[in-house]
């Protein structure tokens, strides 16, 4: 069950209906939501690459165990997210914006399993891009479904539901193809 692509799938799917709910909670505007997703994706890529290089240069030399690396990744994810939020003058904060599964767990997974720097770069970039894309799509569809839920006819809502099921299907197809 736990394949190499498990977390790719998890991030794809989780970004769709999990993180979207968390990040989108009480947010009606798309811009702050998109900023949070983009910042977390960038942090994911930076953390993955930085800790992979540190593994061979520093951690292996001083025999630093994984649990300490995890704590460092958590601190790094938090401070990088906060730094980007400050640079972008982000003000609409939610509790999961700075520390969450996306920018914390995926770099750890790559730290434990990746073999080369190119692998880390492509895997983290793919996951980051997929995260932003799926989160944005789900936010857009959910908001339009909510807007049209009261005013539009049942057929419009049905169409939105079909699109959502299509996205689910795509996520499952990707998973079954790679695993």
């Amino acid at each position, binding site marked *: 069950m736990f394949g190499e692509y498990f977390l790719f799938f*998890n991030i794809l799917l989780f970004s769709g209906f*999990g993180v979207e709910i968390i990040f989108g909670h009480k947010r009606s505007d798309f811009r702050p939501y998109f900023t949070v997703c983009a910042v977390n994706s960038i942090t994911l890529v930076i953390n993955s690459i930085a800790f992979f290089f540190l593994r061979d240069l520093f951690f292996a030399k001083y025999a630093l165990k994984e649990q300490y690396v995890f704590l460092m990744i958590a601190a790094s994810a938090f401070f990088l997210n906060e730094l980007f939020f400050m640079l972008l003058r982000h003000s609409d904060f939610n*509790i999961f914006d700075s520390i969450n*599964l996306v920018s914390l*767990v995926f770099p750890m997974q790559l730290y434990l399993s990746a073999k080369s720097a190119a692998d880390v770069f492509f895997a983290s970039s793919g996951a980051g891009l997929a995260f932003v894309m799926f989160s944005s799509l789900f936010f857009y569809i959910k908001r339009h479904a909510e807007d049209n839920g009261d005013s539009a006819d049942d057929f419009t809502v049905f169409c939105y539901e079909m699109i959502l099921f299509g996205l689910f299907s795509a996520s499952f197809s990707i998973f079954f193809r790679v695993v």
Partner: protein
Amino acid sequence: MCTIGVIPLLMAVDCLSSAALYSVLYFTAMSVSSLSLYALKNVTYRGKYLFAVVAAFSFNYFIYAVLLAGKYCAGGSPQMFVFISSVSVAGIYFDYEFKHFNGFLDFLKYFFIVAASGMAMFFTYGFLIYIFNDKLDNKITFFSYPCSAIITSAVCALLISRLLKKMI
């Protein structure tokens, strides 16, 4: 929030004992995170969430390393899931709810409802795997794929919410 926090961990469960292990880790992370944040509820700096995760990880790693590791069937890649379990979505989310609670007892009531719901999901999933894997001779089944965890948690969440509406 309870369901969202359970799903990533549910994917690691592959038998009853791993269900027990992850429900213990889930409960510990949630307790430590929410209690840390309750103690820091007047602090506005967002660094308190990092503190909650670090505190939860310390307890989870201790449980995993000293009490449970190697003694039981621990599911797929247990070390990775100890890291995942430290980011307790339900525990951190309690920080948002503190202002709605009417004192510590009210917090405890909601805390135990969320904890019991999460643990019920773990044991339901573990029990389903236990029943069906035996009958199908451990071949790759529906429960070999993460979609089964998502569907099980969604069904459990629906049933639990209906039950709670009737009870409370």
